[in-house]
Each structure stands twice: as structure tokens, then as C-alpha cells.
């Protein structure tokens, strides 16, 4: 059992864009003349796009418009009037403000802690052949198979015993647990995709182990690492149930706040808050969109 970066036939080249291989390499005959667009007809293609577009974007637009609505009468397709008052409500509520700040703090700390703990491990899983390597890699995955809510219930006893309930550290632990799989698997695949010959060439040229890591391996594995960093930032940013169970009432983050907002405020306030909460996710993921679509994520979930 070796961890050599053999790229089997079923793997996309990790550095290229998703659409690149098909558009560049596929001959015109397969692309145009006999494609499924021809087969099922352009009408069906357009219908598929419209239905999927409505399915994916419809709810978001429907909610987004609400943030600027005075009132909305069924069955009108537009609100009765437009206003910015709900944004004022959100920006002037100190509780909501502090939850915004807190969310960013947790997300940042979680990302850093998770990186410090998991990145060296990812490197080890990729480059060392130690006993139980594969078992451990799959063992990390077991954290996903136990239902989150059940895990938090189970964690409660332990947290009471360690005095971690309603503490910053307790919440960070819960958040980091949700990132371990990404932070280990995706960078491990990225490290494996760095050809060993590059590292060996650098070694032959006289570079030490750490110079090779710093100058050759890390830069080449950076796209995968970046995807993992951003995914774990967002995992923390989105985490609600565990934060509620462990952090309540001391630490209320934005997603936790959403639960009570939906029940206690007008729907327009929840809509404003939704937009605010979605902005960081959207911006960060747009930054790494190319790598996510290009296979860094998909690559990380195939155990080698």
C-alpha cells in the first residue's frame, strides 16, 4: 500500500477548470452533432434550465425581495410597497450586531485551530505510510455518520464534566469537529497530487526537507488547502445546532439567532438577516469557485 500520487483514469486533472477538458478535448462531432441537446430537443433543454433555475434560485429571490417589502398580499407576485426600515431594525438591534461579530470570531478561530491541527495530518496521510493510515482516514469519516444532533446530546455530559458548557472554547471545539473531515481529506488529496519527482528534484538540488515543503509542496497544494480553509470557515459560520446547545445563552451566533428571529420578528427582518448571513459565504466561495468546480473538493473525498 503506497500513497504515491498515481492519478487513475477516473480522475480529473485537479488543476484545470471543470468545463475545460470537455470543451478543449472533445471533437466537434461528439459535442454538437450527436449531443443530448440534439437528442432530446432544445425545448427540453431550455425547460430543464428553467425548472432547475426556479428550483435553485426561486426561493432565494422570493426571500431576498421580502427584505425590502413593506407588506405582501397573497397572491400578488410583488410586495405592496418598498422600504429600507427592516435594515434599520437589524442594524440598530445590539443583540443582532453582537451575534454578527461573534460569528466572524468563531469562524476565524475555528479555521485557524482546524488548520493547525489538521494540515500536518493531511500531509502525513499523503506522504507517510504509517500503520493504520487508511483505517484512520476512514475513522475520521465516521464523525459524519453519527447524526450531528445525537453527537451534541452525547457531548453534553462530557462538556458538563470538563466545564466547557457556555464557554468560548466549548463552542470552538464543536465547530472544529465539523471541519476535521474537510480539513484533512481535501488537503491530503492536494498534497498527493503534487508529483514526488518535483520534490525529489528539489532535494537533489540540495534543498532541505523544510525548504522543499515550503517552496515546492505547499505552493502546489495551495488551491486544495485554500478550498479546505474556506470550507471550514463557512462550516463554522453556518453551524447552528451545536452552538445553540453548547453556547446558549452566552454565545449566540448569527445562525443561532436565525432560529429565534424566524419565530419572534416579522418575516422581513429574517429576510434582511438572511442576506447579511449569506454575503460572506457567497463572497468567500466565489473566491475559490474555480478550484471547487475544478475538482479539488471531489478529489478530496476519494480515499487513496
Amino acid at each position, binding site marked *: *500500500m503506497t500513497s504515491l500520487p498515481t492519478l487513475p483514469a477516473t480522475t*480529473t486533472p485537479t488543476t484545470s477548470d471543470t468545463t475545460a477538458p470537455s470543451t478543449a478535448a472533445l471533437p466537434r462531432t461528439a459535442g454538437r452533432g450527436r449531443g443530448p441537446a440534439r437528442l432530446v430537443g432544445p425545448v427540453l433543454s431550455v425547460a430543464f434550465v428553467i425548472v432547475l433555475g426556479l428550483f435553485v434560485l426561486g426561493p432565494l429571490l422570493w426571500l431576498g425581495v421580502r427584505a425590502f417589502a413593506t407588506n405582501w398580499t397573497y397572491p400578488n407576485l410583488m410586495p405592496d410597497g418598498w422600504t429600507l426600515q427592516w435594515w434599520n431594525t437589524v442594524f440598530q438591534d445590539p443583540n443582532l450586531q453582537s451575534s454578527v461579530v461573534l460569528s466572524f470570531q468563531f469562524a476565524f478561530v475555528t479555521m485557524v485551530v482546524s488548520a493547525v491541527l489538521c494540515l500536518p495530518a493531511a500531509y502525513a496521510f499523503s506522504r507517510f505510510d504509517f500503520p493504520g493510515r487508511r483505517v484512520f482516514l476512514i475513522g475520521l469519516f465516521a464523525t459524519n455518520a453519527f447524526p450531528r444532533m445525537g453527537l451534541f446530546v452525547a457531548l453534553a455530559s462530557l462538556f458538563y464534566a470538563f466545564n466547557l458548557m457556555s464557554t468560548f472554547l466549548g463552542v470552538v471545539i464543536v465547530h472544529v469537529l465539523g471541519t476535521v473531515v474537510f480539513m484533512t481529506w481535501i488537503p491530503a488529496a492536494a498534497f498527493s497530487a503534487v508529483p514526488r519527482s518535483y520534490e525529489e528534484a528539489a532535494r537533489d538540488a540540495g534543498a532541505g526537507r523544510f525548504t522543499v515543503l515550503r517552496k515546492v509542496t505547499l505552493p502546489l497544494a495551495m488551491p486544495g488547502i485554500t478550498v479546505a480553509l474556506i470550507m471550514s470557515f463557512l462550516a463554522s459560520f453556518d453551524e447552528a445546532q451545536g452552538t445553540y446547545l453548547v453556547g446558549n445563552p452566552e454565545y449566540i451566533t448569527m445562525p443561532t439567532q*436565525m432560529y429565534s428571529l424566524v419565530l419572534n420578528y416579522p418575516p422581513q427582518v429574517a429576510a434582511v438577516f*438572511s442576506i447579511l448571513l449569506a454575503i460572506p459565504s457567497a463572497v468567500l466561495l466565489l473566491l475559490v469557485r474555480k478550484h471547487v*468546480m475544478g475538482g479539488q473538493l471531489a478529489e478530496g473525498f476519494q480515499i487513496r
Partner: protein
Amino acid sequence: MKPSRRHRLGGLALASPPLILVAVFVGFPILVALAYSLGQVGGLNSTIGTIATEQSTVDAWYKVTFGAYRTVFADPRFQRDLVVTVLVTLATTVIVVVLAWGIALYVRLSDSWVAKILSALAVVPMFIPVVIASWAILTFYAADGFLRSIAAHVGIEAPIWGYTITAVVIGLVWTNLPFATLMVVSGVQGVPDALIEAARDAGASIPRTVVSIIAPMALVPTVIAGTFTAIGTLGAFTVPYFTGPNAPKMLGVDLADYFQSFNLPQSSVVMAIVIFIVASGFGGVYVWANYRSAASSGRV
């Protein structure tokens, strides 16, 4: 290059921090919870055991009781919700995989604008926090939502899907679509052009090429997409909590209710373990698929 013994131990040492973290904060609590579900209320379970009501307990460390499991499995509400949870999981997984395959084939076999739009659309949900997605989907399919409004304009009385199992499936498909699509697209893209062309030159139709050439080669990513969707769906909380009905509920919501609202933590833990056992079944398929791919490319 034969790794030396020191090299191997160094690897294990580097890999240990996340392993220890997971062992302490996931593995160990699960074992403690398992002991609690079997009637152990000493040690770490003493706090929870004191607060809780209606427990099945034992008086010595070497004894076990399956009383809690009997109670939970005899509860008609649990029986109904277990069936619903499994059915929702199967429906969601099938729909997600079918959609992901449809998109992946478009992307692979055609370079039209349709392919580009479809693959971009499918990834959008990844950019949106689940809490918001659930809330957005609920309002979209609610009694005064878009679907009913637009139907009312053309004179149709559309069904109310808000707070129904249909909305739960819609929400779970929505949230699981990006990951499955990325996995399947990556797998289908990996099929070499030469193989597809050869099949087409030999006279194979598009469906025939898909079934005989592309599908077998993209099997592993498909299985990974399916198992992750199934496992995520089995224990889902946020989507069914926001969009689902009061009855039946999915088990993820039930176990939160039993813990927080009914003060029946033992039943809650039993449910978590039942979900875990079902999820392990799906997880086993995933491990098998990975092992198979590793074996076929000579990596084991």
C-alpha cells in the same frame, strides 16, 4: 524508497492531532452515550441520569438492559418516524443522484450554454447557509408563497407544500445537490474521450455509451455522492425542523425534541444510535466503493 521505522512513526505523530480530537470528542462521547442507552447511569452519565425521566437503568457496571431500546421501538411515533426518515432519505438520494447525473452528462457530452448554466446553477446552494435555505424554501412553497401565487394567477389551486414532507424532500435535495453534482461531474469528466469516441465509432448510441462506458467508470464518485447524501439526510435537523410538519417528523428533529422538550435523553440517545447504525450501512457501501477503486488501480 522503503520508509524507515522512524519515518513511519513520524507520520503517525503528525497525523495524530485530529485523530485524538475526534477520539476524545466524538468517539468517547459516543461510547459513553452507548453505555447510557444500555442502562449505565454512573460516571459521566450521572448528571444526565439524575435530570432525566423514565430511564431503564442497571445497578452494576457489567450489566446491560435493552429496556430503553424496547421502549423506543414500541413507541408508535418512533416507528412511524423511522419509516418516514428512511423513505425521505431514499427519495432525496435518488432525486439528487439522478439530477447530478443529468447535469454531468450535459456537461460531458455537450459544450452548449445549457451545460454551463446547469453546472453553475447546481453549485449555488453551496453558497447559502442551510438555515437560510430552509427558511427561503419554506416561504417559497408556503400557503402565500410563490408557487401558490403564480398558480392563483393562472387560476389553479396549487398544493401547500410548506410544513409537509414534500417540503422536507425539496429542501434536502436543494442542500445536497452541489456536493453530489461536483462528485458526479468530476467522475464523468474523468472518462477519457478516446473511450467515448471508440464506442461511438463502433456504432453505439448515446444512451448505450452512457450505460456501457461512462456509467461503470463513474460508479465510485456516484456511490460517494449517494452515501454522503444519504448519511447527511438521515441525521438532518435544520431542513426538517424549519420546513417539516409537526407529525410525522424526521428522527433528527425527534431526537432533539426528546432531549430538550420531553426530557427523555435516553430515548434520544437510542434514536441517535439507530440513525448511526443505518448510516453505517450506507457508509459501508462508501468504503467498499473506495476500496474497489483502489484495488482496481493497484493501489492496495
